């Protein structure tokens, strides 16, 4: 009797186990910040986005991704020295952590999305140019918030005058001197066109075309040459490979369909990127 009981229980349990659908892949959203102060907490942080990640772009609990809140995605934060050249390796350098993240979280059944802001997007494009995403078949796409991959006129003009490796890399001629067409996935581009405050707006006069007070549309929209673009969707100007302008009808700052961009400044674009990711994943 006992044996029969055990056998029956085993069979029922076995059936239940088979009927259970296969475990979902683990999904990671990996944040890559831009130009900022030197980091004090270098590495790939796995916090739940409830705090300030020192030099990492702080999203804070108020700006937490809905996809992460829903539990279907896990967030990771790449913290590197925001004064350093984003094309470099080493301790507290962007390329070290990006490659480590691609190797660890974008392979072997895992799926990942990179959410980059500003110079963090340059770091991503450089990693692609260097072939560092080879084998990262779990990389789904990249969400670019105010990408500075094409450089900034402020860096070219020496407006920041800090003399850092980051500012050197952000000079337009330097930024566009390597091949930006090696991304293995679509890069969704989001661009801002507001300036907040006298200082930011005076910076805008140095930058050609529409801009977010730090970077112009030529870079943030993914165009393949520098110029004075005023619309993110512009058939007269070519874009780098697989750059898709992302116009989100939802979120805190909906897209302005007249120029396919967002009425916010460079800092505000971080949350636009977060909303874009949430919408793309069906969580907004």
């Amino acid at each position: 009797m006992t044996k029969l009981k055990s056998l029956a229980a085993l069979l029922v349990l076995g059936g239940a186990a088979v009927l259970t659908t296969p475990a979902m892949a683990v999904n990671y959203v990996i944040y890559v910040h831009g130009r900022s102060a030197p980091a004090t907490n270098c590495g790939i942080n796995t916090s739940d986005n409830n705090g300030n990640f020192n030099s990492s772009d702080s999203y804070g609990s108020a700006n937490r991704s809905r996809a992460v809140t829903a539990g279907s995605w896990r967030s990771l934060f790449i913290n590197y020295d925001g004064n350093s050249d984003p094309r470099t390796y080493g301790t507290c350098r962007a390329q070290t952590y990006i490659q480590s993240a691609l190797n660890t979280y974008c392979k072997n059944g895992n799926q990942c999305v990179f959410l980059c802001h500003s110079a963090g997007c340059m770091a991503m494009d450089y990693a692609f140019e260097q072939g560092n995403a080879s084998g990262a078949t779990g990389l789904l796409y990249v969400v670019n918030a105010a990408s500075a991959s094409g450089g900034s006129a402020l860096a070219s003009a020496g407006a920041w005058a800090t003399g850092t490796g980051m500012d050197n890399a952000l000079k337009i001629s330097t930024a566009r001197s390597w091949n930006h067409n090696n991304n293995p996935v679509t890069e969704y581009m989001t661009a801002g066109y507001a300036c907040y405050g006298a200082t930011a707006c005076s910076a805008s006069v140095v930058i050609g075309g529409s801009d977010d007070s730090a970077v112009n549309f030529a870079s943030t929209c993914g165009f393949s040459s520098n110029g004075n673009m005023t619309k993110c969707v512009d058939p007269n100007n070519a874009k780098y490979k697989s750059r898709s302008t992302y116009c989100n009808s939802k979120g805190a700052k909906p897209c302005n369909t007249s120029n396919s961009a967002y009425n916010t400044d460079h800092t505000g674009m971080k949350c636009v990127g977060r909303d874009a990711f949430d919408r793309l994943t069906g969580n907004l």
Partner: protein
Amino acid sequence: MEKKKLYIVGGIVGVLVVAIGAVLMSGRVTNRAGRAAVAFEEERNRSSSNQEYTSPDENGVAKKVQSAEVATPEIMMLQFQMQYRYPLDSRPLTRTMTDLTEPFKIQPARHPIYAHNPPGEGEKPLLYYSWSGPSHVVTANSPAVAFLEVFDLDGNVVKPRVISADVYSDFTFGRKLAGQATSEAAGDGKTKISWTPRDGERLHWGEIELRVLFDTPNVKNNLVVADFSSTPTAPALFTGDYYDHLENGSLVIDASIDVKKAGKYVFDANVFDQSGEPYGRVHLVTYLERGQQKLPLQFFGIIFHDREFNQGKLVLKNLRGRRMNLPFDPRKLDGMLARGEVIPTNTEPLDEWIPLPSPDYVTGRSYDVDEFSKKEYEGLDKAERLKQVQQYARDWDKQNGQS
């Protein structure tokens, strides 16, 4: 006895449950398994069969991707199809890709000059300036040349009087004064600034700044900067020997190279027809040991069909390459990262450019489009990627209650 019957019934039910589950989890696709899974099964069958050639609708796909706010499995499949029609390192090239067809050109662009840096609110510029030039890459046999133009606020050309033209070293060397450039009038109101790096001079290596101080009749002491990527000592040399042939329906042009310094190299090259129409591009990242060797530049076959090539000789242009100056052996990087080892930090210029080859190479014979394969790319990475996209579809369907 009743209990015994109950257990037997329970066991039979369990067996039935297992059997039903096995059927559902088999390759059979039901409505509840999700629409995306159906599409992916079809894609797997399509790409593995010998289907008729169909030209890509890249613009149509790009528009669909752009207009979709949600990355549904269908959108992910479209992106997959677009990306993996060709290998990731061998892609079509079109006329609009001027960043690739003229990779080194210093594109002219007007920039304002203000009295203050940064300018005050509402401050108007004093002048505009523009740089142009054939190449921002400088090697020992190819000096830095840049043309400076200056304009007044009405757009009229203003002739500058150059006070100084100083060369400053790469940022990693502390932006030291590294030399002087020469200046001369070049016609049309342009001023030609020239500088040649000295072989073996460390301060002439890297991202160099050319700082030009000039006066105009109305505005004094204007400072403008042009940037160059300079490599005075070549890490490798293209020998000028090439060999073109077909391999599995793709055009391969072997470029001979003499490597002086082993390391990680990044190469790019384009292929055009003799009328100047672009067809394809190659991006190659590879580790090279010292010595003479051949660099295989593969232009994937179907590209020539998609770009509507007909027949004729093909021209290899814009061949360029650089050695990555890394403070570690790049072949060991993945292992170092996996073991959590400290990665050494870059403290020197990143790039060492190979002198650009000249002239362009014309294939030894004419090719006909029918010699190139019409098959889409079928590499292992594509199969892996398809599996991942299928997983994405399953997860999506589950998340949205469709499985």
